[in-house]
């Protein structure tokens, strides 16, 4: 689903630039990309991003861009909610805060007070931090797995700023680094000139078209994501397929069953690194914050259960998801390559 209300200013009509960020190349690139934007200088991105009484969903109708200098920490240990894909040294970083897309179930709307997007222009500092962590990682015999798209969809931003590309190039110079780029974007052709790298896993989140249309606003349709996946596989890149979250609604089994049939039929399994499956889950505090803002989405008005401060679906529903995916995928990929996050 795409934005249609033309009474709102286009995204990035305004760019808020930290004084300290002005000297960075990424800032200059970004300002060149939006020559008609109103530029407003700020001393600290938090003075704009963390204002009181912002409305996340209204701001989503006209997203503003913030260019800032990230201060330490530049790298974080993974959380319980983030899928670690079985990696012992699993970290994430935040090249960008917030997302161009607006998925109903996204935790970002509970995590951040603002829907505006923060781009940290000192990406090199983040790369230096990864270098340091590579040397001091807890399990030296295992690679360091780094999710660079945890708090954003970095690939969706590639036409604006080629940050994913710079991380791919960075990973290619490291021996023990594996980078996960989680996305719903169809912009894979931005990398058509790059040779496939075994340091990169592109993780595409897939949902039935009904879910894409109803709950994944501004994201590319399923078909375009599948085309991007097929292109990536044909080039030899490692691909992870993510069905996360699987949403529960009337007739969800049929929709997800049809989706899996389509994937089994159209996506060559040879370069599928693994598959992850999850259900709706959100930290209680984030959930309550979203709920308090009275979102239009029905996802926040269901009867969830609370498990260890996480709001999620019932065990019965989790079992149904596990059963469906296990059954459908059993002839497509080996069992050990399916990771359930439920």
């Amino acid at each position, binding site marked *: 689903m795409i934005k249609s209300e033309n009474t709102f200013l286009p995204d990035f009509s305004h760019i808020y630039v930290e004084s300290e960020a002005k000297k960075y190349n990424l800032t200059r690139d970004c300002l060149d990309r939006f020559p008609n934007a109103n530029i407003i200088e700020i001393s600290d991105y938090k003075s704009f991003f963390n*204002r009181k009484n912002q*409305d996340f969903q209204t701001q989503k109708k006209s997203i503003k861009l913030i260019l800032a200098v990230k201060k330490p920490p530049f790298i974080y240990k993974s959380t319980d909610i983030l899928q670690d894909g079985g990696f012992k040294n699993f970290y994430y970083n935040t090249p960008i805060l917030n997302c161009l897309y607006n998925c109903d179930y996204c935790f970002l709307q509970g995590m951040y007070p603002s829907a505006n997007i923060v781009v940290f222009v000192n990406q090199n500092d983040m790369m230096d931090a990864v270098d340091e962590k590579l040397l001091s990682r807890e399990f030296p015999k295992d690679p360091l797995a780094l999710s660079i798209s945890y708090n954003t969809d970095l690939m969706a931003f590639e036409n604006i700023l080629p940050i994913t590309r710079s991380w791919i190039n960075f990973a290619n110079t490291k021996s023990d680094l594996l980078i996960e780029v989680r996305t719903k974007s169809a912009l894979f052709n931005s990398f058509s000139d790059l040779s496939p790298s075994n340091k990169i896993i592109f993780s595409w989140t897939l949902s039935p078209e009904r879910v894409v249309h109803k709950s994944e606003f501004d994201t590319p349709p399923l078909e375009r994501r599948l085309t991007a996946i097929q292109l990536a596989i044909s080039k030899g890149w490692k691909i992870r397929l993510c069905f996360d979250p699987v949403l529960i609604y009337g007739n969800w089994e049929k929709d997800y069953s049809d989706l899996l049939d389509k994937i089994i039929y159209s996506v060559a399994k040879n370069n599928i690194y693994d598959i992850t499956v999850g259900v709706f889950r959100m930290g209680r505090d984030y959930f309550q914050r979203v*709920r308090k803002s009275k979102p239009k989405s029905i996802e926040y008005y269901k009867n969830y259960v609370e498990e260890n401060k996480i709001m999620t679906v019932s065990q019965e529903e989790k079992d149904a998801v596990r059963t469906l995916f296990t059954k459908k995928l059993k002839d497509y990929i080996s069992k050990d390559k399916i990771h359930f996050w439920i």
Partner: protein
Amino acid sequence: MNFLFLTALKVEATPIIKRFNLEKDLKTQLFINNNISLLITGVGKHKTKFRLKSIIDLKINWNETIIINVGIAGGEKNKTNIGSIYLINKIIDEETGKIFFPDILIKNNLEEISLTTVINSVSDDSFNYTGLVDMEASAIFESLSLYIPCHRFIFLKIVSDHMNILDWKSINVESLIQKQIESISKIINSYNNQNLSNRIILDKVEINLLTKYSKKLKLTKTQSIELMLLSENFKKNNGLISGLDFYFKQIPKSKQERNKVFDKIRKHLSA
């Protein structure tokens, strides 16, 4: 949407009062016509805060109200033109150092600029303020931002001088505002957009009814909150709240009885 104009001076208000046919309500001191109202705050942060405090408790539907501060301002000589109207995108309170940002989400044709709110009027251009200078904007934002989200503040300033005026009476304020009244009207039209109001699930009637039910059943605070949340779930999933009357017909005689009834309500609303 409702629009609440705030001006510091009567002469700033006059063109707006005329344009929107506002009439003074003696009880509230607001000038009102349907969804548009106006309050004269007086000059300076102190008076402004005091006047705004007096209207907070009025029965204004803050969920749908857009604040429009219209007034004259001093402008930086090389960047602004006398008589021009500007939309403010950043407000700096000179006294406290606090900075406020209204969200600018709606399309408009106005030039944007930053504004500094000062304590005393500026008549010496050697201070080198960037952008515009006024005496109320930061107080307005600070006083009302508890009730109004950042995207429902509009600050429109018309440059009256280049901070070099010795005789303030020489400025024809009413004329300056009058010349921009169509720009102000256009802003009203473009912001008259229901997407800017607070989202609600339960309407006032439903909330009052549930509050009444809670009192009748002597629900605990936690139960009352849960009743509201479950009712929101029910309405979101079913379109309306129904079938609750049955549970509230009798007043429970004990806590146990109340809890039993509440369990039944919980089941009903969770179905």
